[in-house]
């Protein structure tokens, strides 16, 4: 028979004022299997805990119920006390006599009776409790960071600086991401490259960082602390061990008219190229789609130019395998491009640009060396219109969310324009100005007041070309809905920030969830913004939602700390409140029949297939198995299993059944 100890707390007078605590202890004390029952003023106090510890030893208790406050408050306290007395902590349960009883009912017979019922319920539960051991998972102390923009750079440096190895994977030939494309940054107008490039160099030189550029994640298997990543190193066609980065090949490459990705299509590049002069690594790759040799089998001019013989024509993609313990996703965002705004003429009229294109144009290293000139005829525009919310906050475009950064960069663009074209006239059409951030509102006010940017509250219906001008038809809703028509020389669209292309496929590879817009989903919108639902995979930057640089850097550092915390122990210790599939003696092995409906029900991909084989190696059956590293203990699988083959520790069938039966049996 069980030997349960019951400890009823007065909580000062919080419980005892409405509940007859002595009667509770007395009545519960008479229950079958209860060896000891007392009440005390403050169970959670030192003397209170000592009562429990002593009783555990004295009565050789195999279960403890504390009738006190909410278990959400003191369950860890009392479980620790039990553990200190040598009782498995998971044999201790709490009955909530305060929040769920004394505080919500008046002093009465019924209130005391309810308290008795609640304690009895937990006594019945605890009789069915089993001693549980914490789950220990070994941790590989190396991190994989996917994406080499500012988020990935920051996360990599922060993790590397805690002394752990980092593998940084970047899809493009250089790290740097969108931040390297920016001209100046709000709200300080400091040059983006000036603050970013030192970080890029630091990444390249850091002894703890292994950098794979021009590489993509092929697959990720495993679970927290124990991932195996396969990374595809795309063929660069250049041997980086000998290449000096002199750039002679680039000078001589005959294919010169390829739209430059780095310049957002405004400039051109060659087929063998480095994306931009400050690239890290500053060595070229050959774009095989556009290279004459790969297209037509002849050319090889770069090979003749190269004095160290670094060109490798028959180089193939390579797959490397890396064991890592944690992953930081920092794959960033993209901007909506052509064909998304037929009404604004983007892609149709050369002088309608995206914000990112304007950014390149305003950049001193850009295609126009920082001068604002119309792509169509090279003329400096005297009238420029900025359209904020181009796509964002527009459910009809499928983007109901706010892209967050556009208000600020549009103000910056208008400001930069006014600084560069003194007699120019700039107009911003906006829905609302969202300038939440340190010095942000002041920055926008400066654009309006000092740089005399004309802000018009209203949306633009259409942009069309007429006699070499772009006619912007919009509305000014502050002046009673007046229609406005502006004959502009250039139009800049603050295009919506969207999930990076391929993010959905990447999410599926990693088993992380994503929102309807393909941004990766955080584990909790408030309290777990850098975690994903897959333990051991963290988020940094705009891959989670559009965000600005300071926020991205903050999030990256946050993710890095999460990784460092995970790496601070050799083993990961987790609460054992996870699901288990029963195992029985042959010939049944388990009552699980392997229908795997639990697999689709599990939000964490914690259900694995386990093959049960006979001595001769033949397959007897395939059953479900819970990966303890991934299971978070929600129990959805348990309620779903028809044959009750899967159960969840801490809330087992027997435990909850006993609770329900106890509550209703009188």
């Amino acid at each position, binding site marked *: 028979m069980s030997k349960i100890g019951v400890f009823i707390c007065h909580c000062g007078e919080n419980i005892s004022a409405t509940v007859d605590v002595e009667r509770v202890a007395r009545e519960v004390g008479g229950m079958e299997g209860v060896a000891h029952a007392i009440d005390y003023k403050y169970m959670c106090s030192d003397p209170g805990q000592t009562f429990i510890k002593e009783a555990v030893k004295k009565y050789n208790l195999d279960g403890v119920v504390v009738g006190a406050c*909410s*278990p*959400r408050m003191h369950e860890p306290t009392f479980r620790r006390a039990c553990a200190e007395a040598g009782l498995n902590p998971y044999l201790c349960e709490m009955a*909530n006599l*305060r*929040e*769920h009883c004394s*505080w*919500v*009912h*008046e002093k*009465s017979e*019924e*209130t005391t*009776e*309810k308290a008795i*019922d*609640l304690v009895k*319920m937990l006594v019945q539960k605890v*009789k*069915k409790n089993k001693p549980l051991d914490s789950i220990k998972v070994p941790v590989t102390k190396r991190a994989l960071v996917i994406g080499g923009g500012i988020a990935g750079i920051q996360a990599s440096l922060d993790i590397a600086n805690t002394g752990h190895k980092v593998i940084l994977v970047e899809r493009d030939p250089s790290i740097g991401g969108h931040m390297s494309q920016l001209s100046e940054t709000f709200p300080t107008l400091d040059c983006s490259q000036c603050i970013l490039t030192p970080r890029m160099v630091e990444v390249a030189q850091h002894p703890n960082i292994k950098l794979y550029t021009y590489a993509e994640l092929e697959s990720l298997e495993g679970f927290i602390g124990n991932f195996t990543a396969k990374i595809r190193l795309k063929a660069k066609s250049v041997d980086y061990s000998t290449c000096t980065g002199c750039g002679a090949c680039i000078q001589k490459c005959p294919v010169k008219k390829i739209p430059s990705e780095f310049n957002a299509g405004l400039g051109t590049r060659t087929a063998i190229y480095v994306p931009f002069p400050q690239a890290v690594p500053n060595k070229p790759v050959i774009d095989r789609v556009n290279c004459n040799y790969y297209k037509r089998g002849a050319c090889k001019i770069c090979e003749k130019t190269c004095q160290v013989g670094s060109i490798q024509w028959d180089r193939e993609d390579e797959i490397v395998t890396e064991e890592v313990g944690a992953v930081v996703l920092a794959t960033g965002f993209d901007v909506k491009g052509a064909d998304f705004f037929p009404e604004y003429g983007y892609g149709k009229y050369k002088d309608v640009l995206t914000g990112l294109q304007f950014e390149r144009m305003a950049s001193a290293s850009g295609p126009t060396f920082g001068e604002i000139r119309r792509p169509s005829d090279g003329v400096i525009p005297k009238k420029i219109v900025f359209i904020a919310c181009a796509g964002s906050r527009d459910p009809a475009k499928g983007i109901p969310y706010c892209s967050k950064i556009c208000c600020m960069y549009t103000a910056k663009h208008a400001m930069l324009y006014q600084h560069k074209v003194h007699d120019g006239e700039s107009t911003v059409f906006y829905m609302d100005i969202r300038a939440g951030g340190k010095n942000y509102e002041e920055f926008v006010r400066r654009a309006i007041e000092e740089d005399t940017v004309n802000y018009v509250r209203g949306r633009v219906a259409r942009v069309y070309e007429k006699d070499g001008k772009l006619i912007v038809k919009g509305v000014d809703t502050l002046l009673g809905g007046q229609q406005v028509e502006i004959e502009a020389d250039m139009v800049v669209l603050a295009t919506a920030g969207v999930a990076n292309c391929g993010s959905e496929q990447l999410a599926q590879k990693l088993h992380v*969830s994503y929102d309807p817009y393909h941004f990766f*989903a955080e*584990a*909790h919108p408030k309290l777990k913004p850098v975690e994903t*639902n897959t333990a051991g995979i963290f988020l940094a930057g705009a891959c989670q939602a559009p965000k600005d640089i300071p926020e991205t850097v903050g999030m990256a550092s946050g993710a890095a700390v999460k990784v460092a915390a995970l790496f601070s122990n050799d083993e990961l210790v987790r609460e054992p*409140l996870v699901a288990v599939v029963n195992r029985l003696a042959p010939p049944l092995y388990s009552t699980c029949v392997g229908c795997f409906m639990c697999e689709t*029900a599990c*939000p*964490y991909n914690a259900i694995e297939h386990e093959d049960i084989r006979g001595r001769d190696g033949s397959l007897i059956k395939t059953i479900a198995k819970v990966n303890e590293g991934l299971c*978070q*203990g*929600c*129990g*959805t699988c*348990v*309620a*779903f299993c028809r044959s009750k083959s899967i159960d*969840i520790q*801490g*809330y087992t*069938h*027997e435990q*909850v*059944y*006993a*609770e*329900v*039966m*106890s*509550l*209703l*049996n009188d």
Partner: protein
Amino acid sequence: MSSNTDFEPKIIAFVCNWCTYAGADLTGTSRLKYATNVKIVRFPCTGRIDFLLLLKSFAQGADGIIVSGCHPNDCHYTSGNFHARRRWIAFRSILDLMGVDIRRIQYSWVSAAEGSKWADLVNHTVADIRSLGPYQEYQKIADYLEKGGYHGED
């Protein structure tokens, strides 16, 4: 049923740990009062709540049942409540087909911030069940042969 005013319904509440249990805690810390008829059983998630537990509750003499968890999109485990919602849609439909009184099961979303909603929910449910009277129909079949035995004892 004329004596309904004297009838104290037995109501059992199945709630998830993260939203409704915490919401009921908040009811306590806010010192809002509600009827003593409801007793809470704590689950990790509404996704864990087995429909058989609801049937067993009626069999054991519950007059009413509350099932409550996180609002859609708020689930601590992201989707346990969505699974639960589907399960309850189907379960309710079966019970209704079989003629079980589905008015006696109150489903609800109560978040950790909705302490007053929990108090309201309990009070309303108690009043509703009180007006429906004891669930004698189900008791009658439960009493035939098997009431009282709790067959999980070691």
